[in-house]
């Protein structure tokens, strides 16, 4: 499974949205209805899935599905 597919799976699960709502441009807050607690949980789930540490500063810049995918591609080592 690609990074993109994994990220989409986590977003679907945590935000209770359907696959067709998750575009690469989709904003967690504006398009997918996330609140601040949802976003915090999403970051925890991404850290778990990809065995990463995402700093608070970095997580503030992850506001769309595409940003999450790009961040992980840049920082995740198989």
């Amino acid at each position, binding site marked *: 499974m690609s990074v993109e597919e994994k990220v989409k799976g986590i977003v679907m699960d*945590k*935000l*209770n949205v359907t696959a067709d709502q998750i575009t690469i441009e989709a904003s967690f807050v504006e398009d997918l209805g996330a609140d*601040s*607690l949802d976003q*915090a*949980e999403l970051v*925890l789930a991404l850290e778990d899935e990809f065995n990463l*540490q995402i700093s608070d500063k970095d997580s503030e810049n992850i506001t769309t599905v595409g940003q999450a995918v790009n961040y992980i591609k840049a920082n995740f080592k198989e």
Partner: protein
Amino acid sequence: MGIRVVITGMGVVTPLGNNLADTWKNLLAGKSGVDTISAFPTDGLSTTIAAEVKGFAPEQYIDPKTLRRMDRNEQLGLSAAQMAYDDAGLGQNNLNRDRCGVIIGSGIGGIRTFEDQHKTMLDRGAKRVSPFFIPMMIIDMCAGMTAMRFDFKGPNYATVSACASSANAIADSFRIIQRGEADIMMTGGAEAAITPLSMAGFCSARAISRRNDEPQKASRPFDRDRDGFVMGEGAGILVLESLESARARGSRIYAEIIGCGMTCDAHHITAPLPDGRGAALAMQAAINDAGIKPEDLDYVNSHGTATGLGDIAETRALKTVFGDYAYKLAINSTKSMTGHLLGAAGAVESIVTIKSIQESVLHPTINLDNPDPDCDLDYLANTTRKMKINRAISNSFGFGGHNASLVFADVNSS
């Protein structure tokens, strides 16, 4: 005459059933809800039995995303609230939701979440703690979530007085409607404290029965061979409403709440006053508040937990308040079958009291095979009774010395 307050909706989840109809049927059948604990391995615990809610599917009331972010006590409480809401027909469009409030108590709150998240922090570090830990753990969140669900913008909080929590919630709700601050209050309690740490604590306090090899016989209020209460879990929610509002809505009225009394033993953190004076003062206050005489009551839904001291203290308190008439009262203990629902007990037992008034039948106190000589009243030992009940009192007493008594009446008798 001031504002009269009636009950127009009820919902429960208990160890005897996942709704009121099943719970009531099993109470009348004298069934025990106690069994060996299934939720977790009980190695090392001196007590391995409890009255768990069985096979409950909260998904029928709550969406999956919300459900994951709720402690079990909140899941049980919100489910019972939905049942009570539907039962009272509150879904109607013209309800003034600014005049509707929620008070839901719990003795312990989100202890399962607390244990899980504490383990996460120790094992994996502070950064791994869920952002939902705090809202899942705090006791007031069940009231908050209930208000969110129904858009109830009136008074909203939790009551915390251990095993009297939900009786205090009902008492406060009664007063709020009497004072004209709200027309409708959803109120009661929710508890889900059958967890490893919680059970370990109750075991260490030597408060709970160790009759592990006979779970169904472990909860034996007023019996000579009782050895402590049995932990239970569940929720009970009532819709309290001004009589005027209920009539305007054309709502079915189950019963009227006519009095409450609240006191404290001011004596010991866990043990009751041996002479039951604090409990007697609460019952007397409730009777005075109702404007009736002790002899006007027909039935007592006792606190009756099956602790050595508690059952005797309650019996003495009944004799103090009722004198010789105490021997003519019909008394039972719901906990003989449900176990002790702690902060949900007062609400579930209030609902049982109201059902008894409505159906003119009383459930038995099971496992009362050899009455304690110091407990010599009519506790309906292993027997149901059909009788007209005009007025009844429900008692709840908690660690900390909290006492709360509630008086309910047939709406045609009050």
